[in-house]
């Protein structure tokens, strides 16, 4: 009741001023912090614009590319060097445009990396949260599954699975990869959840009878959201390497489907790697720039998540 009488004493003007002051002093929202951090770090902002712009470009541009025509062999254009005969980046040994393959390949590779990040991170986060929150036998059992997965030689297992499954496409490939790439996230989230579960607010929620699911996903998860964002950004950069690496070895996307990895695989031919550098080098450079930019962004995000390291005021 006391509070009611008090608000009545303050004039509307005074209230507005106080609210504005309180807002100014309160911690800004996490989006705001993130944005401020990017504004304070010019190179990071540029990296962000490049990455987002590039991803949008490779997602939209392939809609206007006739991929069937792109992948047909044209013997007349055999290994055309760059900047000749309408081939901006030259052509490969089958006379196919490297530039067009690069765009479509980027779409495939980045698309798989995004899908893989979404699936494996979601699974890893859920696994870590549940394992860390419940503890005891549940945690023990889930950790044994984790141990077992960690023991598996990942690259080998993926190659074996890809050989078994005859008819796979990018979606089934993404799922196969996801089986093997959730463990890192889960371990990280579990250790933070263990620490978080010991805190008073969780104990209070438990005593007042809140359901476990609600505590896990509505209370603990928002509290470790900064960690989740940082980890997801970094795994995205890593996941680009997963698909491209396996496609490079010939066990990712089928050879008819261009990917950044299959493009780099052009370098397996000793003639290509020495004389016809344009068949593989652009894809390699693109992967390097992309991964560097994404993890640079990840650095800024992790700085924003840690108040003692922020650069922005």
């Amino acid at each position: 009741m006391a509070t009611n009488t008090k608000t009545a004493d303050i004039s509307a003007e005074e209230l507005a001023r106080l609210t504005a002051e309180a807002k100014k002093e309160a911690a800004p929202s996490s989006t705001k912090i993130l944005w401020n951090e990017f504004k304070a770090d010019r190179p990071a902002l540029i990296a962000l614009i490049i990455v987002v712009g590039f991803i949008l470009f490779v997602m939209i541009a392939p809609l206007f590319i006739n991929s069937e025509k792109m992948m047909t062999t044209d013997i007349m254009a055999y290994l055309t060097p760059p900047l000749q005969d309408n081939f901006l980046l030259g052509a490969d040994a089958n006379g196919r445009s490297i530039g067009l393959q690069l765009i479509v390949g980027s779409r495939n590779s980045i698309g798989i990396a995004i899908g893989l990040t979404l699936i494996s991170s979601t699974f890893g986060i859920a696994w870590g949260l549940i394992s860390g929150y419940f503890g005891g036998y549940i945690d023990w059992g889930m950790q044994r599954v984790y141990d077992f997965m960690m023991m598996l030689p990942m690259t080998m297992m993926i190659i074996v699975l890809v050989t078994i499954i005859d008819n796979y496409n990018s979606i089934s490939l993404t799922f196969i990869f996801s089986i093997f790439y959730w463990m890192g996230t889960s371990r990280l989230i579990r250790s933070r959840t263990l620490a978080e579960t010991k805190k008073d607010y969780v104990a209070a929620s438990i005593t007042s009878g809140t359901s476990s699911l609600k505590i896990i996903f509505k209370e603990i998860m928002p509290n470790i959201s900064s960690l989740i964002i940082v980890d997801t950004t970094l795994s995205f950069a890593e996941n680009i390497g997963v698909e491209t690496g396996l496609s490079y070895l010939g066990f990712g996307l089928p050879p008819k489907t261009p990917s950044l990895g299959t493009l780099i695989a052009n370098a397996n031919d000793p003639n290509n790697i020495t004389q016809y550098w344009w068949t593989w080098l652009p894809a390699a450079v693109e992967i390097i720039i992309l991964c560097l930019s994404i993890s640079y962004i990840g650095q800024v995000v992790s700085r924003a998540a840690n108040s003692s390291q922020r650069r922005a005021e």
Partner: protein
Amino acid sequence: MWKTILRRILIMIPEIILLSILVFLLAKAMPGDPFTGSINPRSSAAQIQHLKELNGLYDPWYQQYWNWIVHLFHGDLGQSYQYHEAVSNLIGERAINTLWLSAFTMVLTYLIALPLGLYAGKHEGKLPDTVIRVYTYVTYCIPFFVILVIGLWIFGYVLNWFPTTGSVAPTAKGLGMLSSRFFHILLPGLLGALFGTVNIVQYMRSEVIDAKRSDYVRTARSKGVPEKDIYRHHIFRNSLLPIAAFGGYSITGLLNGSIFTETIFSYPGMGMLFIDSINYRDYTVITALVLLFGVMNLLGTLLSDIILGIVDPRIRIE
């Protein structure tokens, strides 16, 4: 301590059994059979049938699995259908090559990473620290196979400094063979080490930063031990054991990387053998390799856990 180790080993046993079943079933599910390659136009369907029956390919899977396990315990991993050689001999030959390359890479990694980590920790927050952090970050986030391909292109083909294929020059003899071997692992080893330092550098750095503020360092300082000796004898010595524990964990990474390294450099080790066997559907070799890699991952982790358990009593109680 012994109890912890024993419990860890007991947990390992069901894991290995599970892995062996998984590996066996996956190999069975692979398309084609080992005789696909050896069938010639004159062999009749009945002959192939007979060949398959002889090799027990029509038995139920658990029986085949049991036979495989019994043979495994007799040290018999089966015959390679492609190379017409006992799998254990085949893998033995290739394992030596992989071992050389991995050991060389690991030693180089430590040689590069330890001083960097120590230096970064010593100058925490200053310019050297920033430079080292940027270096580890850049090397960490570029996919390793891209580095290998570009390294092979620049140093192998363009500059022509290093050999681009094989593990030894075919003409080399005697002492020349040893140096030729070393010459062949130099480039992949250097690249692997330069681009694989991140974990050790970061761990060493945080160890040093923790140690700098600890009581024993303060005591040493107050006794007047020179700053250089504090770092060399007190801090460095103390962090050596936990750092050594990283060796076990890095086995996983090295083995995984060997598939790429050996394929790109056409280096005849286990990684390349695996890719070849996949292409030939040589499934006795595939199962043996996957199982071997899995067991080695497990042993590496066990080793690291034991070392860390000795260093840090808190881990033991868990």
